[in-house]
């Protein structure tokens, strides 16, 4: 039973990463006004929304199974309050941050007409940060980081998001050079940081210990 839960946590996490990547892609497609006669824009907008809701569903299972499972010491509070966990506090905490951000983004989007489009848009910029946080969490907490299939998944997701971000920065529209340059610079810094950190951290042997996995999990103690 425990094994099932633990594997569910890992699987749903990976699926959620895939979904969030899809959400970011669709969001950027909306922003750069992709679509028209063959792919109506309201379809893109609808998929963006539905994929987010589906992703939230996977994340609920992801967090729920992690809590129920007794292999790692994660409790209910850790799903909402970041950086308080006994298990890989920083890297798990990033997942919590991403989850909370996603919740806020979803709620504010559903209440968009109430809060006004300007505030909504400012908030929605954090979607990019949300994705990066979730990505780092996946690498930092994931148990499968050095499994080729996971590496492929992460690599593809990363490349796709990078591509659409570049598309958005270069997309036609109001010039706003400063904003575009700032976005490009930020993206570059984040990219360099994530690559450097992954190479030095999760991709090297011995990461689990350095990441803050307790030496004896309650489960193994009982055995």
């Amino acid at each position, binding site marked *: 039973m425990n094994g099932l839960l633990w594997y569910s946590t890992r699987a749903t996490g990976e699926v959620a990463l895939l979904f969030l990547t899809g959400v970011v892609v669709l969001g950027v497609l909306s922003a750069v006004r992709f679509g028209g006669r063959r792919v109506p824009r309201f379809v893109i*907008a609808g998929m963006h929304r539905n994929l987010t809701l589906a992703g939230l569903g996977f994340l609920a299972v992801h967090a729920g199974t992690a809590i129920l499972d007794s292999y790692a010491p994660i409790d209910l509070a850790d799903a909402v309050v970041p950086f308080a966990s006994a298990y890989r506090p920083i890297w798990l905490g990033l997942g919590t941050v991403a989850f909370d951000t996603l919740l806020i983004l979803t709620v504010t989007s559903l209440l968009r007409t109430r809060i006004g489009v300007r505030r909504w848009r400012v908030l929605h910029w954090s979607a990019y940060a949300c994705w990066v946080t979730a990505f780092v969490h996946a690498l930092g907490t994931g148990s499968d980081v050095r499994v080729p299939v996971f590496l492929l998944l992460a690599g593809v997701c990363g490349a796709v998001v990078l591509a659409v971000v570049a598309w958005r920065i270069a997309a036609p529209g109001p010039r706003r050079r400063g904003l575009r340059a700032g976005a490009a610079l930020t993206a570059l810094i984040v990219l360099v940081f994530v690559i450097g950190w992954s190479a030095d951290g999760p991709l090297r042997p011995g990461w689990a210990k350095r990441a803050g996995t307790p030496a004896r999990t309650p489960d193994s103690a009982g055995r």
Partner: protein
Amino acid sequence: MTVPWRLRLNPILCTGHALCAELLPEVIVLDEWGYPILSPVPDELLSLARRAVADCPTLALAIEPAP
């Protein structure tokens, strides 16, 4: 047929994403620059009109009872 609802556009917010015209081609046509031109909303299209209002990326549309 009664036409008790109408759409109202805030032209400052509208940036011509044109989702509304895709959803409601019977009521909303686009001018040559891609900005919507609105007509009254017949009853049977009310739910689509509400969706157009909710889905507008810049929240430039509103629906209100016709005066």
